[in-house]
């Protein structure tokens, strides 16, 4: 009998992908990595307020990472896929488990709207990520905004006008780099685009307000006296991201931050329009 009680059902690391707790852990671990990413992403982008030179220097540095950048990108995509896979799996299990609802709706006492609409905020965030990559990474959503370049003139990076032809410049031996600064500001100046960024970041803040506290609980790190502190982590990170990430599109939409083109290289053709 004691022999039998010792034979555990399939445990091991495979349980990460099959059991309810395993899926939660998978979601928490991938989620933690994504939180670290979005927080650093926000601080990196806030450099937009430091002006053209600082921002483009940073963007250039990121681009110069080459292969490493691609490792990071593919890693992030893998993490996002795992996170979504686990979330969808858990959501389906839970829907199935709670298939019978109450006629007099349950009076929820302690849960929050953030906790209850995780899937919804998650979907908004996912749609945003797809758009955001097409917008600012692939440059397919709005090529006119994406295609801005700086050119190296006497050791200084100089902005160029819209009519600048990067291919021709490179052929002529000039050194150019992507003008992420102008792309960022011009892209978010468009009201509908800016609004979408605002909405998506509200969804992100909501998602993280629950998620960041939740992951501590799931990973077994909210024991006893730490709990009152842990319950504040989610709302705190959510609020931080809300302020930082919404500030940027708002600043562009209202014209608080505008493209600074001092010293723009003006080729002859510029007078054409």
């Amino acid at each position, binding site marked *: 009998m004691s022999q039998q009680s010792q034979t*555990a059902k399939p445990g*091991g690391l495979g349980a990460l992908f099959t059991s309810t707790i395993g899926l939660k852990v998978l979601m928490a671990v991938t989620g933690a990595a994504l939180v670290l990413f979005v927080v650093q992403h926000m601080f990196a982008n806030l450099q937009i307020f430091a002006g053209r030179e600082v921002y483009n220097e940073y963007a250039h540095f990121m681009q110069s990472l080459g292969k490493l950048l691609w490792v990071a990108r593919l890693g992030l995509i893998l993490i996002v896929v795992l996170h979504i896979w686990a979330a969808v799996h858990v959501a389906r299990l839970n829907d199935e488990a709670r298939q019978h609802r109450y006629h007099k709706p349950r009076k929820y*006492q*302690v849960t929050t709207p953030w906790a*209850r609409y995780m899937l919804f905020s998650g979907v908004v965030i996912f749609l945003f990520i797809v758009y955001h990559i097409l917008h600012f990474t692939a440059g397919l959503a709005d090529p006119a905004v994406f295609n801005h370049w700086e050119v190296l003139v006497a050791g200084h990076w100089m902005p160029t006008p819209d009519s600048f032809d990067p291919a021709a410049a490179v052929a002529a031996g000039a050194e150019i780099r992507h003008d992420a600064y102008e792309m960022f500001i011009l892209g978010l100046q468009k009201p509908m685009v800016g609004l979408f960024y605002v909405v998506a970041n509200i969804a992100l803040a909501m998602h993280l307000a629950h998620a960041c506290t*939740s992951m501590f*609980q799931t990973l077994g790190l*909210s024991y006893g006296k730490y709990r009152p502190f842990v319950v504040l982590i989610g709302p705190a990170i959510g609020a931080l991201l809300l302020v930082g990430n919404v500030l940027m599109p708002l600043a562009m939409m209202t014209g608080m931050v505008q493209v600074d083109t001092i010293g723009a290289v003006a080729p002859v053709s510029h007078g054409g329009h």
Partner: protein
Amino acid sequence: MSKQTMSLTLHIWRQPGPDRPGRLVPYKVTDVSPDMSFLEMLDVLNEGIIEGKIKDVGNYGPVVFDHDCREGICGMCSMVVNGEPHGPRRGTTTCQLHMRSFEDGDEIYIEPWRAKAFPIVKDLVVDRSAFDNIIAAGGFISVNTGSAPDANAIPIGKRDADEAFDYAACIGCGACVAACPNASAMLFVGAKVAHLVKMPQGQVERESRVINMVSTMDDAGFGACTNHGECSRSCPKEISLDAIMLLNREYMRATVKTRGK
């Protein structure tokens, strides 16, 4: 205490059998003393139905509900009262809930626990065998047979003893599942796992227990915890969410320890 009696309108879930359709049926009960327990009030209702004094639309007969100890220790009296498992009072089972928690003229909705893993047997009675299966899968310890060991032969730290005792307070009622938006049983399973892991006697089956209990829980069709906290709030024994946290911790530890075995 006022001597006044109360009149209530009850909307009770009536379902003749597991696969039969059910519906909420209204009943008027009068002469309810505020000092009655909720179950005594239902006894009054059933008496009225049997004697034909209370109108029973659809002729369902007396309302079938589970109960046993009526003193808050057996965990049988499962019902969702006005959208809250075990009714509006915190840390209180339905049998310990008194009618003074309600007002004269109130409308009260009474439904069974709802969860895929708790199929309805009849009216307010659900089948909670899933909990028994989870206990059978690991809710035990190994002891030598023979004469009872000396009570203090194995010393246990005060803190561990207190915590184990708090978790042991779970009466297996299932309110946590009924309350959970995901119909998750992790507060219950967590309470059992945490109770035994705090004791030296619980160490022998430490890994197999948590793995077997969780896999039985998953097989029964309970959902996964997404940290809403409704379970702990509805729990008549006020089991802390720490139970779920410890369950997660123990499960992770056990999966790592048993890998490749």
